[in-house]
């Protein structure tokens, strides 16, 4: 896809970081086009909200790190579309894995796919073999935020956003948020491992 005359202008303004309204102007121009482009590329039944979120994340990431885009190689529209499609495929794969994992918890007959999921899981998850056990484990957390984090870990949610939403570390930079999320996750994982050891004994 060839770059339109507007694209290099927008890119230069965004790189300069001295016009506070340029992100909104670019969004007004390009965001609806990107969403429609991506919807055409994926299955029609794909949740349009997921499509929008993928485009949104690609757009916001570009605003934060415009240097990642090389206008010599590809048009901005194609670049953002490629990034969004990549994110969307990952999100869909993650959702599929979660659904399969939940099915495997309810019905522990091991098909090849379910076995793959179990193989991928971490040590602490190896101790979790059923819904009742899962509920028992979650009941050991008295703090509701800790319990919700444990649920996300057991569901193997790796995206930081759900954890950030739970911890609400607003006002922190991205890296500080990531550190805070990691710290909480490590603490909960440690607790889950301890529970696993008790079941082994």
């Amino acid at each position: 896809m060839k770059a339109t005359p507007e694209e290099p202008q927008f890119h230069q303004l965004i790189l300069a970081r001295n016009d506070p309204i340029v992100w909104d102007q670019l969004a007004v121009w390009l965001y609806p086009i990107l969403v429609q482009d991506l919807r055409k590329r994926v299955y029609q039944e794909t949740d349009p909200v997921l499509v929008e979120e993928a485009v949104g994340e690609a757009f916001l990431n570009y605003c934060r790190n415009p240097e990642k885009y090389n206008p010599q190689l590809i048009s901005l529209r194609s670049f953002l579309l490629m990034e969004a499609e990549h994110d969307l495929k990952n999100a869909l794969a993650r959702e599929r894995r979660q659904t399969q994992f939940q099915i495997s918890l309810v019905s522990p007959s091991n098909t090849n796919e379910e076995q793959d999921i179990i193989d991928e899981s971490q040590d602490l998850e190896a101790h979790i073999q059923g819904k009742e056990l899962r509920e028992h484990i979650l009941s050991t957390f008295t703090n509701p935020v800790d319990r919700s984090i444990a649920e996300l870990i057991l569901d193997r949610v790796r995206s930081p956003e759900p954890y950030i939403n739970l911890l609400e570390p607003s006002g922190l930079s991205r890296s500080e948020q990531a550190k805070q999320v990691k710290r909480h996750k490590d603490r909960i994982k440690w607790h889950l491992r301890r529970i696993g050891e008790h079941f082994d004994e």
Partner: protein
Amino acid sequence: MNEYTPSLARLAKLARARREFLASLLAVYQEQKKLDDQQLAEFLGCNVEALTHLALCQRPRPFPDFRHDIERIASHVQANPLQLAKLIRTAESLEDMRQEHSQAFLLAARDHDTVLSNDGSDEEETFHE
């Protein structure tokens, strides 16, 4: 498929998690002052629809560019620049306070963990009922 219309409001909502966007400051201010969109728009002297565009603007740079950026943004969304500057200053202060609280919490949690790791027998009391 053609019936679906992409919404910039969704993008603005995603931008709340990005510190570089004004969306994050608007969210802090709205939450603290318990304002809905209509009330926020009234405070800023702009249309409700303009809030989405305001959210997608970049945070104003600090002095000496602050005033220029405020005027540029206010003109873009037809808002009152003085009210916008007031909102941003207040929200930044709230954000700083939250960050300090958060850091204090992390330090306290670290101290707590250190104590627990020195006495393994008490480890689970932190979590178990």
